[in-house]
């Protein structure tokens, strides 16, 4: 029987910045635009 190709798990998709898991990306960007969080967070 042919084996189904196992899908590789994603490394990048839907990985939030640490500590911001609870807010949606749209809100995060609005907070960046308002200067409430830095525009680039170093990981």
């Amino acid at each position, binding site marked *: 029987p042919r084996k189904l190709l196992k899908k590789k798990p*994603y490394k990048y998709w*839907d990985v*939030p910045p640490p500590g911001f898991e609870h807010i949606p*990306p749209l809100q995060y960007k609005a907070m960046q635009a308002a200067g409430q969080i830095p525009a680039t*967070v170093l990981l």
Partner: protein
Amino acid sequence: CSRLHNKPTFSQTIALLNLYQNPQNCAQTANGVCMISDVEMQQHYDDFFEEVFTELEEKYGEIEEMNVCDNLGDHLVGNVYVKFRYEEDAEKAVNDLNNRWFNGHPIHAELSPVTDFREACCR
């Protein structure tokens, strides 16, 4: 170029701003020696490309072409341009991707006027 581009309201192509982070651009020692080999960089890029392409095609629709910018200008570095077969898929992708995370960052997606990548230079 003034960089004041007209953003289309309908397009097959989307731009994902600063999505790809080339490890060679940040992993340098104090004296500027790069700590990532070309082979590792290529592997990293291949993984990135495959992951982005697979998810976008699976979730939003057939892709005709996908390009990643290697330019170092702030407005271009790591930009990913994806040309979908159908404009409706591109629109759906922009709307959804703007509310998704990628590698610890929010995605900035917009429609792009580029249709022919070999002519995608503005002066």
